[in-house]
């Protein structure tokens, strides 16, 4: 039997390298997937421009952050980007609404099949991508400032006397707290407010919603604004947590789509759960358990290799495999989203 201290060390190790990172990554995915699933539920197409919408919103937040920093504005221990967030959301919402009016509304009026809208979203993706690259360039940008850690690994070690440190990054806590607030607010809005209910009704049965006098253009407008806000928040949190690079944001499309489908597309609660499912699977499958096992197993029997199920190079494969399994076993997703 391993000693208690070893078990604690092992748990700390896992918490530090799998649980906490998965919690923040999962929150970011959940916010992204919520946007995708709302667009899907109301406008009924897979929005390929969502990753680039996230990138666009984050870029605006970064530019405003830089400007605030040059003015000497800051939030003390919190990142300045939070101060820039509302402006970034506003700018992103305006841009997506412009794209809706100039691009998507036409296909809605034509009652085009959803795949036409998806292809149109590819065009939007190209343009958003170009705008972002043109303005801020394709390279990595870091914009996190303020306090980096709430508890540093070393402090944790001296505090607890354990071998392993548990570093709690402020971005992790920030991500989780903001996600909690945003998700609660969104669910309250959808369940309780008149417009939120109208959105659900529209998603549920479009013809009947129209017959009930629900104004589709207003619903669509509100949906885009919420999607833009969610995308910007998700993008900024991800960028604070890691770094901002346009291509990485494009690549997040896959885990985000996977999260939305796994949870049940068109189901907000599914998107949240799906986000965490994808994040926890990705991190726990690509984590090297060697050190973890060393604590738990009797001496001499620890594994030779890294004890890693899959190399981190294949983290996309995790979302994909989960996606494929869901499509094979239960195409409606965990919470029975819509499927045609």
């Amino acid at each position: 039997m391993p000693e208690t201290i070893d078990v604690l060390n092992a748990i700390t190790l896992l918490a530090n390298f799998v649980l906490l990172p998965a919690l923040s990554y999962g929150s970011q995915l959940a916010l992204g997937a919520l946007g995708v699933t709302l667009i899907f539920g109301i406008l009924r197409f897979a929005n390929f421009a969502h990753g680039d919408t996230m990138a666009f919103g984050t870029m605006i937040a970064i530019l405003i952050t830089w400007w605030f920093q040059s003015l000497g504005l800051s939030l003390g221990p919190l990142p300045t980007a939070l101060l820039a967030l509302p402006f970034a959301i506003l700018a992103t919402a305006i841009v997506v609404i412009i794209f809706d009016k100039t691009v998507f509304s036409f296909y809605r009026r034509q009652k085009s099949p959803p795949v036409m809208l998806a292809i149109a979203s590819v065009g939007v993706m190209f343009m958003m991508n170009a705008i972002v690259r043109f303005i801020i360039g394709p390279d990595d940008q870091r914009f996190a400032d303020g306090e980096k850690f709430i508890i540093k690994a070393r402090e944790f070690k001296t505090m607890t006397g354990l071998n392993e440190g548990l570093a709690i990054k402020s971005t992790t806590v920030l991500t989780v707290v903001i996600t909690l607030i945003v998700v609660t607010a969104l669910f309250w809005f959808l369940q309780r407010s008149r417009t939120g209910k109208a959105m659900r009704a529209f998603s549920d049965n479009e013809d009947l919603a129209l017959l009930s006098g629900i104004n589709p253009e207003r619903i669509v407008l509100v949906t885009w604004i919420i999607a833009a806000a969610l995308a910007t928040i998700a993008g900024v949190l991800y960028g604070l947590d890691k770094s901002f690079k346009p291509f990485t944001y494009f690549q997040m499309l896959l885990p985000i789509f996977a999260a939305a489908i796994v949870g049940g597309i068109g189901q907000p609660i599914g998107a949240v759960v799906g986000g965490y499912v994808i994040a926890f699977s990705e991190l726990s499958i690509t984590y090297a358990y060697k050190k973890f096992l060393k604590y738990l197993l009797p001496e001499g029997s620890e594994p030779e290799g890294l004890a890693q199920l899959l190399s981190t190079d294949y983290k996309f494969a995790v979302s994909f495999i989960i996606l494929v399994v869901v499509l094979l076993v239960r195409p409606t997703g965990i919470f029975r989203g819509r499927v045609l």
Partner: protein
Amino acid sequence: MSYLAGVDLVGGYGGADILNGCTIAVERGQIAVIVGPNGAGKSTAMKAMLGLLQLRTGQVVLDGEDITALSPQARVAKGIGFVPQTSNIFTGMTVEENLQMGAYLRTDDITPTIEQCYELFPILRDKRKQAAGELSGGQRQQVAVARAMMTEPSVLMLDEPTAGVSPIVMDELFDRIIEVGRTGVAIVMVEQNARQALQIADQAYVLVSGENRHTGSGEELLADANVRKSFLGG
């Protein structure tokens, strides 16, 4: 002129005309029933009166006002309630939310209307927190009718409300519809179950190929040998 009337309706869904000059009219507090063989244009006639298809000629008049040019939403706002044949509820929302959505256009207090609906359909009160999609077929139809009642319409249109429900449920639904009629609402109903529908009809229309074939009170048509032979199976 009747309270609601569709006069000399001609039109279709873009291809050949389905309606060829039929006329449907109903008074407040009365039940008008449209029956006829498959493809006679029964549902189409009703949809034309709601504005869901483009009429080539003919007009729709509500309470003396010509509403032919209005959109379906505008007609709903004018006091026409419509219960489609299928997908007539929000399956993912609770019964109460369905009722609230029915009253979406209203800005005044809707609690009394909800209360009236619950009195009319007592089962819905018990199920009000349940998702409408989880209810039985008959209960769903009640939700659908109640949803349409939420605008406090002066006209209620029902497109085959008893399609796919058992005979017992059908009788109950008809009873409820009669009750709704007694509150002063004009009811237009398309029905597949012609015999039962005629029994409750104040005014009945037998449509064939988009034209009026027989018109009269329900009793008259039930007594008419021609109608019995051709449409009621003897």
